[in-house]
């Protein structure tokens, strides 16, 4: 023994021994643990537990002096949906306990999840409404704020029409708030609204929905426990979705293979069996290179393709001709052997899954990349299979929900679109006359999709005659959205200068406040909204499960809930009565806060409307029951075995068809024919007709969900089909009345869905997935070089699209930009790509204001390969200038590392608060600046937008890095 202390009495010094004997517990702890089952039972217990989870013993504290409440909520950062038990004493959030019962996260948190209690302090929050006066932010009252902002909006509506205002909503809103905001903008008379999904997974949603029906992750994080091989391409899950790795690493322990394909050797790659480095922006070439080997070796699932896939033969011809191994290597820089190895691992370890994120979506050809991923999975027969799937990890906590039911410019909630029929459906749900809705809009604008958040700056700066709406944008409302997440920041401040008014509604002033104050003297309002911990509501995780958040604390400072502000502005703008008439109005904090519609009543309206995607069965009551009984759900299947939720899947993952009373269990894995529809099974959606050029688009004979009375393909259900099948009489009299003339999407009684399902049929039909999406610019995904390409030689072979004149209301350039910059790589030879850090999220103002997180990453940086650094005389950890073709220059620290290959550089996108070398601290409202500030990569990103959804290109552009002269 090294110690000088004596071994008796646990080695305590005499003084301590006195203490411990007097106060008992030290000696008793172990006995206590033992009695509580932790120690004694744990050995046997742990051998059955797949995760090695340590279970907490119940708290046995006797008399507690303070009254304590525990509220179960869900982390507000990423889309995994980790549960939190927030302990509140006398109204103060004092502790955060992990929820081992949650089947999604089993008590685990990443760094951001572990830090959420800071929201209970909100030291650097926006504390009261503020207004920019003479270049400085001044405090104002809520009355003044609502009146001044409201009056200006009304004046602009009168002068320039309702489309002159742009509403940027939020993926941080709950489902109820997102839905209400889309309703709000509709009642205001515009489609000019959007949210983070545009710049996150819009290409995925469009690409995937057009391939097989729904624009969402097909399986779940949990289902990755069942996979035999996972291919991550364009996903850094270890940093962006850390708790998802809990499931993947466990699968890996039980034998699953893991492949990571990325230009950067990420922390996810560090855990992979195989890492493949490809050139940024060449995913189509790589994936079709994989497909080449699949076809070449006959590894495709021929029966599956025959029964369930349309157009694979055409894709095959294209791939075998164009993506021979030499071409793949030429474009991606990946050797043939590696491509073949990936193909073989995916083919011989089925079910295999494919994971992608922003690495695929944020490109001018993002829609093609995601479809190439879909096609690989279809060829292998991996879709609709547990352990397989397209596991598309969404970003924000509720970006899936906001996409489903929130402020999208091209659709009303539930992907109904903006056609007359859709408006009529919603007019009925909202209980307002369709004609009244029409009057709110400028003539001809009601059925025209709005501008996208990625292009709002062009809505301001573009010449009026080139814009497909009456007026340019005159005002913008950032309702929970960062500006530094959008590209072309240098032009953004020009747009900010030009606007009549900028409104920020956010718990934090956000980078908008500082950027606007840098270029303006007035016309900016900052309104403090509260976080999701200060209200209640539902949130949709990436796997489509809905979870209910309880309110943890009352709104801090002068902040108000978003739904209260929507109600207040609706009243001010003159449509409050119509918009709020279906809701219970409540005041959870008495007169201290504004009146608001209750989240429960909003969700019930949402349930009554959203038949298309099965958001109808998730009543607040069912969701709350799930939250209380999380322990009854299985981790691998997400299914409750016994208990009050018996048979349900956790969080009733959409589609959860029919009314809540029908008790559809939710759909854990989409398009899964091994289960009956009423048990959460399905098939591909019949959304594209029944045949094309004489080729059948419906599923072949013998391909149908388990237990279906129709054993072949069929179109979607409507009143005519029900009658033809002789099933009309299965409807109740009330249902018949509601269903007459309707289809499964518009029948407000849910009768058509119910009857289809009692016959084992899928309400949306039974069709084939489309490998060939004829309504997209490239029906078969094609590789096209990015607008700013490091390879002029390949621009010749793989040119981009032609320019578009009016695309989402704006002219959009492709070829002219690419041609003009064909040789720009001589001056800017390095590829600049961007991505996430685990400590921060999104634009980062919220997380960089949290001292627990800020301490861990205090400076922005650029990763550069040692070769490129040495060629430029750049040393590790010194400041450099990153310059891009936009003329922007960023001052950041160099991280010299092999993480990036030669020719590639990487910057995280969470920073803001520096502007081209200058700290913007003075432009923030006093006391409400983020602790850590740095250059926003998007200050310097270049032009470029996806050819279907207007997704911005942030993953492949060019830069130069220069040593800073002392």
């Amino acid at each position: 023994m090294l110690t000088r202390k004596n071994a008796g009495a646990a080695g305590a010094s005499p003084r301590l021994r006195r203490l411990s004997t007097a106060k008992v517990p030290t000696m008793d702890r172990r006995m206590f643990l033992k009695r509580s089952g932790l120690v004694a039972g744990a050995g046997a217990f742990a051998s059955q537990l797949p995760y090695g989870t340590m279970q907490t013993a119940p708290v046995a504290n006797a008399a507690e002096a303070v009254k304590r409440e525990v509220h179960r909520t869900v982390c507000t950062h990423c889309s995994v949906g980790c549960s939190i038990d927030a302990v509140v004493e006398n109204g103060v959030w004092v502790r955060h306990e992990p929820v081992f019962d949650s089947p999604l996260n089993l008590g685990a948190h990443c760094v951001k999840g572990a830090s959420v209690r800071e929201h209970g302090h909100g030291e650097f929050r926006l504390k009261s409404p503020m207004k920019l006066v003479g270049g400085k932010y001044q405090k104002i009252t809520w009355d003044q704020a609502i009146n001044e902002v409201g009056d200006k909006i009304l004046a602009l509506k009168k002068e320039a029409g309702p489309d002159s205002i742009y509403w940027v909503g939020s993926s941080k809103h709950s489902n109820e708030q997102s839905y209400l905001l889309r309703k709000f903008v509709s009642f205001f008379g515009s489609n000019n609204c959007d949210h983070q999904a545009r710049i996150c997974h819009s290409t995925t949603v469009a690409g995937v929905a057009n391939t097989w029906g729904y624009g969402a992750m097909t399986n779940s994080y949990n289902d990755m426990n069942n996979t035999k091989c996972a291919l991550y391409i364009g996903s850094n899950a270890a940093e962006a979705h850390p708790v998802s790795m809990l499931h993947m690493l466990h699968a890996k322990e039980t034998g699953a293979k893991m492949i990571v394909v990325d230009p950067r050797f990420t922390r996810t790659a560090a855990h992979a069996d195989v890492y493949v480095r490809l050139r940024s922006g060449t995913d189509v070439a790589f994936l079709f290179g994989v497909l080449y080997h699949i076809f070449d070796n006959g590894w495709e699932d021929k029966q599956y393709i025959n029964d369930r896939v349309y157009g694979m033969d055409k894709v095959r011809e294209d791939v075998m001709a164009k993506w021979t191994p030499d071409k793949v290597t030429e474009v991606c820089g990946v050797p043939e052997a590696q491509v073949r190895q990936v193909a073989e691992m995916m083919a011989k370890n089925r079910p295999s899954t494919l994971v992608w994120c922003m690495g695929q979506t944020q490109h001018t050809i993002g829609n093609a990349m995601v479809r190439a991923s879909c096609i690989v999975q279809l060829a292998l027969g991996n879709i609709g299979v547990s352990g397989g799937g397209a596991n598309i990890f969404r970003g924000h906590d509720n970006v899936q929900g906001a996409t489903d039911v929130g402020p999208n410019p091209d659709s009303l909630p539930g992907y109904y679109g903006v056609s007359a029929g859709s408006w009529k459906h919603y007019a009925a749900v909202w209980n307002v006359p369709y004609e009244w809705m029409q009057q709110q809009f400028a003539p001809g604008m009601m059925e025209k999709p709005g501008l996208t958040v990625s292009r709002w700056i062009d809505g301001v700066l573009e010449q009026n005659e080139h814009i497909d709406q009456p007026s340019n944008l005159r005002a913008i409302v950032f309702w929970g959205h960062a500006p530094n997440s959008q590209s072309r920041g240098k032009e953004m401040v020009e747009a900010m200068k030009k606007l009549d008014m900028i409104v920020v509604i956010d718990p934090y002033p956000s980078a908008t406040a500082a950027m606007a104050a840098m270029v303006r003297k007035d016309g900016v309002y900052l309104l403090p909204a509260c976080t999701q911990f200060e209200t209640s509501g539902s949130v949709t995780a990436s796997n489509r499960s809905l979870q209910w958040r309880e309110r943890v604390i009352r709104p801090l400072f002068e902040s108000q809930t978003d739904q209260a502000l929507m109600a207040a502005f609706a009243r001010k703008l003159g449509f409050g009565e119509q918009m709020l008439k279906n809701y219970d109005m409540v005041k959870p904090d008495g007169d201290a806060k504004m009146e608001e519609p209750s989240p429960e009543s909003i969700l019930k309206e949402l349930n009554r409307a959203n038949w298309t995607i099965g958001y109808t069965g998730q009543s607040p009551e069912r969701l709350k029951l799930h939250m209380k009984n999380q322990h009854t759900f299985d981790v691998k299947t997400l299914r409750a075995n016994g208990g009050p939720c018996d048979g349900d899947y956790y969080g009733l993952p959409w589609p959860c068809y029919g009314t809540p009373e029908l008790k559809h269990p939710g759909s854990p894995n989409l398009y899964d024919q091994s289960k009956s529809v009423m048990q959460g099974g399905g098939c591909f959606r019949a959304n594209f007709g029944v045949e094309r050029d004489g080729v059948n688009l419906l599923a072949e004979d013998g391909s149908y969900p388990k237990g279906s009375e129709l054993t072949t393909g069929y179109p979607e259900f409507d009143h005519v089909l029900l009658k033809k099948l002789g099933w009309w009489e299965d409807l109740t009299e009330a249902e018949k009345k509601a269903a007459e003339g309707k289809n499964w999407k518009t029948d407000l009684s849910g009768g058509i869905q119910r009857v289809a399902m009692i016959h084992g049929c899928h309400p949306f039909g039974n069709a084939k997935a489309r490998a060939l999406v004829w309504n997209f610019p490239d029906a078969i995904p094609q590789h096209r070089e990015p607008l700013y390409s490091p390879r002029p030689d390949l621009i010749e072979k793989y040119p981009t699209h032609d320019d578009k004149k009016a695309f989402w209301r704006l002219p959009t350039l492709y070829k002219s930009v690419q041609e003009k910059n064909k040789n720009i790589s001589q001056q800017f030879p390095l590829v600049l790509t961007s991505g996430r850090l685990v400590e921060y999220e999104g634009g980062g103002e919220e997380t960089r204001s949290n001292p627990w997180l800020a301490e861990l990453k205090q400076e922005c940086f650029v990763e550069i390969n040692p070769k490129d650094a040495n060629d430029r005389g750049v040393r590790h950890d010194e400041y450099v200038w990153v310059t891009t073709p936009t003329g922007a220059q960023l001052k950041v620290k160099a991280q010299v590392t092999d993480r990036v290959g030669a020719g590639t550089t990487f910057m995280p996108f969470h920073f803001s608060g520096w502007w081209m070398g200058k700290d913007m601290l003075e432009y923030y409202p006093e006391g409400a600046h983020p602790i850590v500030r740095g250059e926003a990569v998007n200050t310097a990103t270049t032009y470029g937008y996806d050819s279907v959804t207007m997704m911005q290109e942030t993953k492949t552009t060019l830069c130069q890095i220069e040593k800073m002269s002392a």
Partner: protein
Amino acid sequence: MARMKFICDAERCIECNSCVVACKQEHNIPWGVNRRRVVTLNDGVPGERSISAACMHCSDAPCMAVCPVDCFYKTADGVVLHDKDLCIGCGYCFYACPFGAPQFPQDGAFGLRGKMDKCTFCAGGPEPDGSEAEFQKYGRNRLAEGKLPACAEMCSTKALLGGDGDVLADIYRQRAMARGKGSEVWGWATAYGRPEGKPSAPRPQDKPGPKAPANGNGGKS
């Protein structure tokens, strides 16, 4: 005897830092003091691995051995704790500790850095369990509440495990067996060498017979 231990499974650690923040928020630790941190080897190249490190609550704790004022003590659960009222901030423990566990609130020479602070295995200090005085000096006492350390409970991938060494050894062994590798990472042979060309020696607890103490160093204490 239960002996509380941490183990960090490098095959699972993804360097997410949740353990660092779990600790900070549970105990309200100020900026600059880190009872726990994540260390990465081979950063950015194949073979990159991370582990979370804090006080390892050593069986033979060097900090205890060198402390001139004898402020350390060990609980019946094997947790190494200290008494801030006795600590003089000399920093000897910091020099002695192979893991860099002891932290000081300020920079400076002897006597100027303030009272030493370190991981308590969420077991507080000498004051009465759960008392305000204990909370102010050492943070929460989760063990007294029947809970395990916050860092391990919140670990994103269950890489960091904290609890009775016997239980942890079982869990880790199970994982290592499932993976078919990894048992060579820890233990006596790794720490103190093994004969050239020979595989790592089987650990005592892998053999049938009476159960050996699973304290991670091959049965020697």
